């Protein structure tokens, strides 16, 4: 193994832990699934690198299987997310913590929004398009 290969391994490890950090800290179900995909990327990169170190095609072949499974996982995860969304009308993972003991406190509820950052449209600084044609009947929310 050359030091160069080691760099690839470390980049793979970096992607892996970034995915893990994202999975553990974020509360959006879809983002969590995405973070899991990022972890899979890290693993795929490591496997490709290993295959190169060993001068075989197994690494890449295995990565293709990983890719397949990741695609399946993404499809299933998204349909599950949709099913969950249908029940709670939210993508917040904290709404789904019913498996705890009744006396264990649940996740803390959010503090009320006080900062200016989240007021108005949560899209924040998305540039708006100039209206072409007749103005819509309803005023745009947020008064921008």
């Amino acid at each position, binding site marked *: 193994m050359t030091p160069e290969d080691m760099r690839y391994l470390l980049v793979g490890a970096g992607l892996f832990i970034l995915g893990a950090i994202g999975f553990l800290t974020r509360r959006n179900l879809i983002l*969590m699934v995405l973070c899991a995909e990022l972890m899979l990327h890290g693993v795929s990169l490591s496997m490709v690198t290993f295959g190169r170190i060993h001068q075989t095609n197994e690494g890449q072949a295995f990565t293709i299987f990983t890719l397949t499974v990741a695609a399946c996982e993404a499809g299933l995860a998204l349909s599950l997310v949709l099913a969950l969304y249908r029940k709670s009308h939210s993508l917040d993972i904290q709404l*789904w913590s019913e498996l*705890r003991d009744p006396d264990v406190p649940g996740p803390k509820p959010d503090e009320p929004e006080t900062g200016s950052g989240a007021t108005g449209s949560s899209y924040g600084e998305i540039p708006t398009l100039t209206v072409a044609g007749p103005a819509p009947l309803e005023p745009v929310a947020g008064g921008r």
Partner: protein
Amino acid sequence: MLEDIQQLVLWAIPAAPLLSAIVTALLGKKVLKGRSHLPCWSALAVSFVCSLVLLFGVLPGINGTGNGYARESIVFGFEWLHVGTLEIPLQLRADSMSAIMLAMVTGVSFLVSLFGSGYMHHDPGYPRFFAAVSMFVFSMCMLVLSNNFAQLFVFWEMVGLCSYLLIGFWFHKPSAAAAAKKAFVVNRIGDFGLIMGIFLIWTNFGSIDFLHVLSSQEVISHVHTKSPHVIPLICFCLFLGAMGKSAQFPLQVWLPDAMEGPTPVSALIHAATMVTAGVYLVARCTPLFVMAPNVQMFVTAIGAATAVIAALTALTQTDLKRVLAYSTVSQLGFMFMALGCGAAGTELVTPAVTAGMFHLFTHAYFKALLFLAAGSVMHAMGDIIDMRRFSGLKHALPITHWTFLVGAAALAGVPLLAGFWSKDDILAVLYEASHSKEHGLFFGTILVIACATALLTAFYTFRAYFMTFWGPERFPEEAGDHPHEATPIMAWPLRILAVCAALIGLAVGPTHLFASYLHKTVGLTAPEAHGLHWNIMALSTVIGMAGIGFAWMFYVASPGIPVAIAKAMKPLYLVSQGKFFLDEILFVLVVLPLRGIALIATLVDRFLIDGLIDSVGALPGMLSGYLKRLQSGLVTSYAGVMWLGAVVVVVIALILT
């Protein structure tokens, strides 16, 4: 041939009632219903016939063994327990004493079951009644037939259980349930003594077999010389059991309350048979009691105290059945008085036991008769038993009247009737004991007490008689417009018992039939031929007649006298009517301290022990309280823990390599 008959007879006596009990208990409610008395009747008839065969056929055919007089028939059943050196076989053993008891028990039970089928007619618990009565007769027969103390104890408890079931027969009545519980609990105190006595016998004799413990004089004297305090202690413990079962002072409080049961039960269990089990036990253990004169004197003293207290209480009771119950207690006291007379000299042991057992025997008949007659009154009066609410029943209930009169006269000691002979025997034994050098004064006092009690007995018996059957004719409204005389099925047992009560004393007492039969029991010796004590007879006749005369004077001739006396001696009257406040005294002396202990135990249990246990139990809960927060139900936290584990594993791997 004899062996076969012996086996058959001995087994049939308890087996028939057991079979009847099982059949009635299983089929009574669904199949037999109103015919539930049939198994009981037939079983008790079989038992009675077998008892008679045993009494007159089998036992006289056996040659005496042991000391030349004892004759017994032992049938081995099976080995029940074999633990270490303790062997408890189930054996049936019949000797003269058991045979007399068996004949008496089965005979009276048969008559009572006849009466009961009329008395309990239309009761919803009809099958239950006969099942319990059959069970009781079975237990009582096994108790009498026991050949070792363990078997005796088992059936001693079983008769207690049957008594409990029958006292609480009408368990929906709170008073009946309470009385049943009281009887059971008070009996436990005595049973504690009994089982302690059995333990002592086991540790000192190395066996609990009657044959080993009672038959051989050498064994007893060996034990006695080895440790002189043991046998008195054993006797005391056994007597404690007898005190509980036979309602002796101060444990007699349960018996009057036991009258809550159906009257046939009172007649059978609480007058004729079960309560005499204590007397039987003491008589059976005569060889032990002989070695402990002090305990014998204690027995006599307790008997005398019971007799006089119960008689004084009976003076003022207005409940007919309670008067009879106190008279039962009093008569049991008489029996114990007699049993203790052996202390005055070994030559008195056999007459003493004979007198006690003879009184037991005659008492069973006339007391059963009295109770059944009282039941007949109760039946006619619509379950009213308070003597103040009816009077002058002698025309309305002629059969009941005459039979009750016979029973009352027998109890009061009218000459030639059953009670006269047996009471006379007891007084004679006491009289002879009072001539002994050692304890003459003691037994003299007891004799005086006994005479006074006899006077009281005659008085209160005839007080009840006059109050019930004489005077103006009054019926309570519960009786309906016309009180009905006992039906034939109830009347015939009364007649038969009345004949027995009248004649049985004369038949076996002065002819020495009873004594010459009984003395073949282990521990008794051949009686010396002694003449009748004419002086005692005269004395007891005078006493009985005086009592009856006083009763006539007070309650028929001039009914104002009792009221005046009650007013003049108000405190004494109240003491008597309040049953010497024994219930209250026992409540303060026994129940309250026990409740205090129970309270302390409750507090200790609840706060100390429960606290300890709970805190031990709470410890995992407390610890897991923190740990279970990991189980937050949130996917993220599970993944986080997994991730942390991976981190730790990799770091450890790094450190190790």
